[in-house]
């Protein structure tokens, strides 16, 4: 009994949403007739046999049905659209496949994997046509990497209300596939080869040019995500994973790799995904997603329900390599303390961090700042604006503040 009480009290130590844990049972308990499941009676689910084994594909508890991806605020149609991963409801550094963010330019194609092909051609000694089964026969590689949309978020208000709205276009998974280097060695490269144009089989025939050097480094052609085959919305049956580079280059529904001596200057590397600077010129081929972090608990829309010991939790990542360190501030950026990193930090992967946070009703602005193994420090929004102005749109990796009101309500800390 003592341990149960301690356990129950322990569970309320975590930050909760309004209405959970402490609030509701008291309210309903007072009015309703005897609740057969109310503590400390032995609840129904303990007195009855549970559901049968072997449900074909497991689903989350119906009590978690509010934890979903959401169409990005302001979007009016779902075809050339994006949905965010609910960062404020997730724990740790791996994103569940059904909650991995989406960005599609012409909807999700329904691909028959038996008829899908990957063609490698261009400046190669011998072009190659591969089925999905063929690709699974090459030596396999499993690695954990984040993918982040280049516009996560833009530099302009309205600022997002939740962590999902602020930075929900990032997710992380363990990817399994074949090293692109293996495939390029299989076809044999012509000495003039410098770029690889990757194309998807969707209705956008999404196309991006990737430097050969990156293709021979850590780029993967993957067929699985977190142990199961890719979901349709993540590129089933084949996807390119270009670790640390902007999400758009991680071509989904991959069907063609064209080895060339020059970039294609496709629409997505000229009209889009270029960074407009204050002088009216723009950066091109700005591929790397720089070091970033965000506190996900407590974050916008959360509510602290009691005074005392709390924990700040969040995620950090860098397209340049491993996260070296994360600092947190609970005084609006005046003072910073080192957070604890999840052990085994993977390169170009979401890295969970945690820091103790005593709170006794003070108004607070909390934020996190990540530093990667190259020594790069996550900047403030004003530092980014000083370097790039307000219209560069992409590659915003600014420090994100959250404001905690004296009643425990958490909102976006941007003014």
């Amino acid at each position: 009994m003592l341990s149960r009480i301690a356990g129950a009290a322990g569970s309320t130590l975590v930050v909760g949403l309004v209405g959970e844990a402490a609030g509701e049972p008291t309210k309903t308990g007072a009015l309703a007739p005897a609740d057969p499941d109310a503590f400390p009676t032995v609840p129904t689910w303990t007195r009855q046999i549970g559901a049968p084994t072997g449900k074909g594909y497991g689903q989350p508890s119906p009590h978690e049905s509010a934890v979903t991806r959401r169409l990005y605020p302001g979007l009016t149609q779902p075809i050339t659209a994006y949905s965010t991963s609910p960062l404020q409801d997730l724990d740790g550094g791996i994103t569940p496949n059904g909650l991995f963010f989406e960005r599609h330019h012409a909807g999700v194609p329904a691909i028959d994997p038996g008829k899908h092909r990957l063609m490698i051609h261009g400046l190669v000694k011998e072009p190659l046509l591969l089925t999905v089964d063929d690709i699974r026969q090459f030596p396999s590689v499993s690695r954990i990497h984040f993918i982040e949309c280049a516009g996560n978020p833009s530099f302009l208000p309205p600022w997002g209300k939740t962590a999902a709205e602020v930075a929900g276009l990032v997710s992380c998974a363990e990817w399994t596939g074949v090293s692109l280097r293996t495939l390029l060695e299989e076809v044999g490269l012509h000495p003039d080869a410098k770029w690889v144009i990757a194309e998807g089989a969707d209705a956008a025939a999404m196309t991006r040019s990737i430097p050969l050097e990156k293709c021979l480094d850590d780029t993967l052609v993957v067929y699985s995500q977190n142990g199961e085959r890719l979901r349709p919305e993540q590129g089933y049956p084949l996807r390119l994973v270009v670790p640390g580079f902007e999400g758009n280059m991680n071509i989904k529904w991959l069907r063609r790799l064209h080895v060339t001596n020059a970039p294609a200057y496709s629409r997505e590397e000229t009209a889009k995904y270029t960074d407009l600077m204050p002088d009216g010129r723009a950066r091109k081929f700005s591929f790397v997603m720089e070091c970033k972090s965000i506190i996900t608990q407590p974050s916008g829309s959360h509510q602290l329900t009691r005074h005392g010991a709390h924990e700040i939790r969040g995620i950090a990542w860098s397209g340049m390599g491993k996260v070296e360190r994360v600092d947190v501030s609970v005084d609006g950026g005046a003072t910073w303390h080192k957070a604890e990193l999840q052990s085994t930090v993977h390169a170009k992967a979401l890295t969970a961090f945690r820091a103790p946070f005593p709170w006794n009703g003070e108004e607070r602005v909390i934020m996190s700042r990540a530093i990667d193994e190259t020594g790069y420090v996550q900047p403030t929004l004003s530092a980014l604006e000083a370097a790039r102005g307000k219209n560069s749109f992409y590659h915003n990796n600014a420090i994100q503040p959250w404001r905690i009101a004296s009643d425990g309500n958490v909102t976006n800390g941007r003014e």
Partner: protein
Amino acid sequence: MDASRLAVAIACWTLTVTAHAGAYGIGTRPTDAQIAAWNIDVAPDGKALPPGRGTVEQGHAIYDRQCAACHGLDLQGGMGPALAGGVGSLASEKPLKTVGSYWPYATTLFDYIRRTMPLASPQTLSSDELYALVGYVLFRNGIVPAGTTVDAAQVVNVRMPNREGFYLDDRPDTKERPCDEHCLRATKK
């Protein structure tokens, strides 16, 4: 093994090796026709542009029928982005990035329309229709005159206003150091 049998053995081994390009010998070699059927990449050199031609006037009719519903009768945008205007706006507070104000190459316009547009039925327009549409969008941006007939040479040679508007990524562009104490005071100095 005598010398002639050794030579035959080596020849057979060599044949076996050359039959597979790489170490694994997995997959098949696509024919040139199969590659041509899928390869629709058009780079700024325009070498991959197909034969064909179309006039601005033809493009106008195709645009009104196939494109205007999303991009607007005057290319001003709607459900889809604006395709014209914005020249001179890139350094302003409200930049408008369009084909005319921002895109560096007309080959990109041909490539993108062919692979992606119309949104609900991509890769259905003929080469002549594509050249005509490129011509009309360029005309509405004041880049070619009304009487133009557009073909591969025109798409490669047309000078886009913002051709020189891009430079290679030069990040990192913030050089912050990790301050630990009195950081806001330090910023205000």
